[in-house]
């Protein structure tokens, strides 16, 4: 029963991948290329590329890709449901605890420190993405710098902070400028 197997496999991914996409990738690989021969290693590499080029959580992307391949739209829906169900149950329980006890003094102290850590995590993730935007996979060196992206980054940051631009529109505008400049300079 392929649908049930899809559900179970992605429920395991959803249940054991702690810490986001990078933690989920090896688990997905184990499920779809080893536990089941659903994808060849090459197809798995395609999946990773696709997941990076399309929006949304990597685990959901993987669930949709594998589900569609094996059982069409129903497969995609079942695999995605398996992937999110463990989170929905666990996090709902946690949400209940949080909303109930967050104003207790001990909890408040802990949450204050967690907030400081989250600020650091977002800053670190931003640094990683900035490096990716400016240098791609190449080493950080002046000759590898993507000048256009440096200008886009500075412009977008100023627009977001000073002019309070809508972030989604800012993002789309960056993509549009990237295409326009690429076409103008003959990269496409």
């Amino acid at each position: 029963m392929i649908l049930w197997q899809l559900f179970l496999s992605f429920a395991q991914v959803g249940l054991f991948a702690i810490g986001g996409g990078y933690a989920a990738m090896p688990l997905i690989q184990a499920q779809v290329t080893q536990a089941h021969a659903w994808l060849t290693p090459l197809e798995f590499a395609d999946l990773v590329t696709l997941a990076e080029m399309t929006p949304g959580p990597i685990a959901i992307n993987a669930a949709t890709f594998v589900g569609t391949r094996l059982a069409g739209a129903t497969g995609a829906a079942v695999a995605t449901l398996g992937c999110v169900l463990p989170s929905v149950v666990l996090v709902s329980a946690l949400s209940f605890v949080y909303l109930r006890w967050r104003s207790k003094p001990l909890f408040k102290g802990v949450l204050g420190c967690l907030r400081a850590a989250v600020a650091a995590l977002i800053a670190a993730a931003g640094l990683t993405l900035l490096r990716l935007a400016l240098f791609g996979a190449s080493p950080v060196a002046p000759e590898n710098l993507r000048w256009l992206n440096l200008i886009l980054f500075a412009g977008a940051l100023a627009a977001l902070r000073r002019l309070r631009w809508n972030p989604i529109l800012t993002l789309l505008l960056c993509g549009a400028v990237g295409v326009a400049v690429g076409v103008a300079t003959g990269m496409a």
Partner: protein
Amino acid sequence: MSNPSPLRRLWVLFRSMLVISAFTFGGGFVIVSLMKKRFVDELGWLEEEEMLDMIALAQTCPGPIAVNCAVLVGWRVAGSAGMLSAVLGTVLPPMVVLGLVSLAYDRFAGNRYAALALRGMQAGVAAILADVALGLVGKVLRAGDGLRIALMAAAFVAVAFFRVNAVWILLAAALAGTIAALRRKGGGAT
């Protein structure tokens, strides 16, 4: 804070997550940064501190961070119906986009315009995270709590330069917070 009808609230919640999820490349922290801008800065539905708590909790639970965060925000904003509409809004765009793209993989992956657009959007994504991070870091610094500032600096170095898993960082921060709170309590009693 505006007080729209419950049904309207669910719709705005669903639509917000749908839009955010449809345009988010680059992992969980991008989507939670956009959620912060939407639900705290634009709609005023959540306090900034609540949003940060939710990001921390979402990160320590298994599963996609975006989905976990949607569950937390959904419950807080509109109960179980809110949770369901937020999760649905989060998972629909990647399902539809990937379902379509996986049918025409070769044409999409080799498309130069898609590659150029994605490259430009990387700069935009980095700018969004920098914007949110600058705001949050500035706030922690201005609050002037020595422990939290030290914790933030240590966490940044650990993740950015030593690639320590975020889950360990949050557990360590929770431990430091607990010890500090207990000591303060003990100090107050004597």
